[in-house]
């Protein structure tokens, strides 16, 4: 997404800047598909965002165990 979202202190200003509103909503839409991309020792794993009723989280499960014995 290009361009900054304008800052508006009043509702009238916001309503007049339809481009900023569009960008803000596109940003929110993009964040719906947010994911953490974790690369360890050259191996990449992707962990998507999850929304709950009131919050959001990305759960990353890792193991430090290495093959031994």
């Amino acid at each position, binding site marked *: 997404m290009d361009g900054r979202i304008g800052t508006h202190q009043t509702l009238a200003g916001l309503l007049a800047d339809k481009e900023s509103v569009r960008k803000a*909503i*596109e940003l*929110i*839409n993009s964040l719906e598909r947010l994911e*953490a991309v974790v690369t360890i020792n050259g191996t990449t794993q992707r962990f998507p*965002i999850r929304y709950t009723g009131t*919050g*959001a989280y*990305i759960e990353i*499960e890792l193991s430090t165990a290495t093959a031994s014995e």
Partner: protein
Amino acid sequence: MKFPTDLAEYIRNPALMQALLNRVRALQRLEIIWKVDGVVTRSPVKVAGQGAAIPVVLTTAAPEPELDLHPETVVWWDRILAAGGSVSEASILLADALIRAVNAAAFNSKVKYLLPLLGDDIIAARVPLRDFIDAGIAGNVGFTNADFSESTGLQGDGSTKRLELEDNTIADLGSNGGLGWWELDAPVGLNVMLGGYRSTTSAGFILYTSSGFIRFRWGTSANGVNTTLPMENAHYYGQRSAATLREIFKDGTSLASNTTSDAATGTGEQMVRLMGGQRDTETFYWGGRCAVAYMTDGTLDAGEVADLHALLNTYLITPTGRTPSTGWDAETDTWLAAISSAGGTVSEASTIVANRLIRAIKGATWGSKIKYLLPLLGDNLAAALQPLRDTLGAGAPANANFANADFSESTGLQGNGTNKRLTLTGFSAASLGTGGNGGLGWWENNPPAASTTVLMGNYRTSTTAGFILYSSSGASAFRWGTAGNSANAGPGYTANPSAHYYGQRSSATSRFLYLNGSAVDSDANSDAATGTGERTLTFFGAQNASDNFFWGGRAACIYLTDGTLTSDQVAELYEILQAHLITPMGR
């Protein structure tokens, strides 16, 4: 859901606006939940000004270093775990350093069995660090965790506890053999540290003590070799390196040898024991404290014996902090001083008995409840009358008519039932516990015929109420207050038994009589125990308003308590007196 980008949609549909705001609100609370090896860490987003960040702190724990253990250590550790024992990493490393040092020594292959007594419990302590003779984990007879700690070693009791190895393992040492033992609390008298006897003769393969020496035998009894001095807290080692050489070492130095030819017949026919021995039907239990025991093939030269001593000291005795017992307990010291001051004498052997007795009592959770204790030890009456415990500050009882002839350490103090008594002048039942409580203990081993008389205690000045252990026509009884509120060993009990009597009043409604540690009767009538401060506390009798009583029995031990022992504690006290006084003195 995907939100429309046209603002007009939101103006037309307030619910859509609400959903959009909810989405923004949710993103305000975004967090990363890390699950690393099952450990959950939460990293929330931090919104500040026009920026936002999710700070994440992850630490990579240093990997547990793999213990690079000697194979013998690994086997030892596995055996401990398989047996259900426990051992700390520090002890494992200590054992590992020890066995590596042994492996690096010139005599390595000559050490066939090594019991370092390491670990957290009696199970671990019984597992040999080296076991080339397949002696196995030493079987346990009587030891508990309380008998063992890494910093002190393994404490025997001289009467019931020992370790048992697989039978006939002496033969596995080779044609020769050696027995090693590091003692920290040397007992006295005839006893066996380790080894095995032949099954039906006194010939054997043992390291043992007798009065005045420590001896190593590898074959017939006559060909043993011994020191000229009594056993001390030291490292002893005996070995047979040839038919014509048996030698005994102390702290790595040779003390004596025997060169009579002995074929060492019967190395393959014994029951092998540690902390004791077994000869046919004769049983030995070691009363000392062991720091390490081991067996060799018997072929160490003098330099190697010295090196082995230094090695054990460096890698086991010193790092575990195992130090020999030194000096006497403070109460034993006080007792010895009182004996000396009274013109009495006591042998070292009896002092050891007294010392163990007072330490055993001291080691009990209820030990402070014993207020006064006459163990009746010493070479003469002056010694026998000195209390080993005297928190009353009463000192020795005043003697009425007892003579030296009435006393023997191996039996006790004999009363006559007519004119011999002991009195704690200035002390009464009120001197013992609080709130009118108190306890009277007496170990009788030569009771008189059934009669009505008193063993110990005191009466009120003008009534038959009293605070006494007594015998009513032979029936043992305990009174602490009015005569009607006694606890009595009634029908079914032997009149005047040879037994350990103990009576106590622990509250106005609790008076118990115990025989040999078990309650035989109680009385729960409320009794204020009025008059505990009257008359003098007497042993071998008492005096009431109209009668003088004398006990004609023989005391093996007399004591006073504060009256608050539980039933279990009474039983434990009985066991301690039996194990640490009656049995060792042969009473």
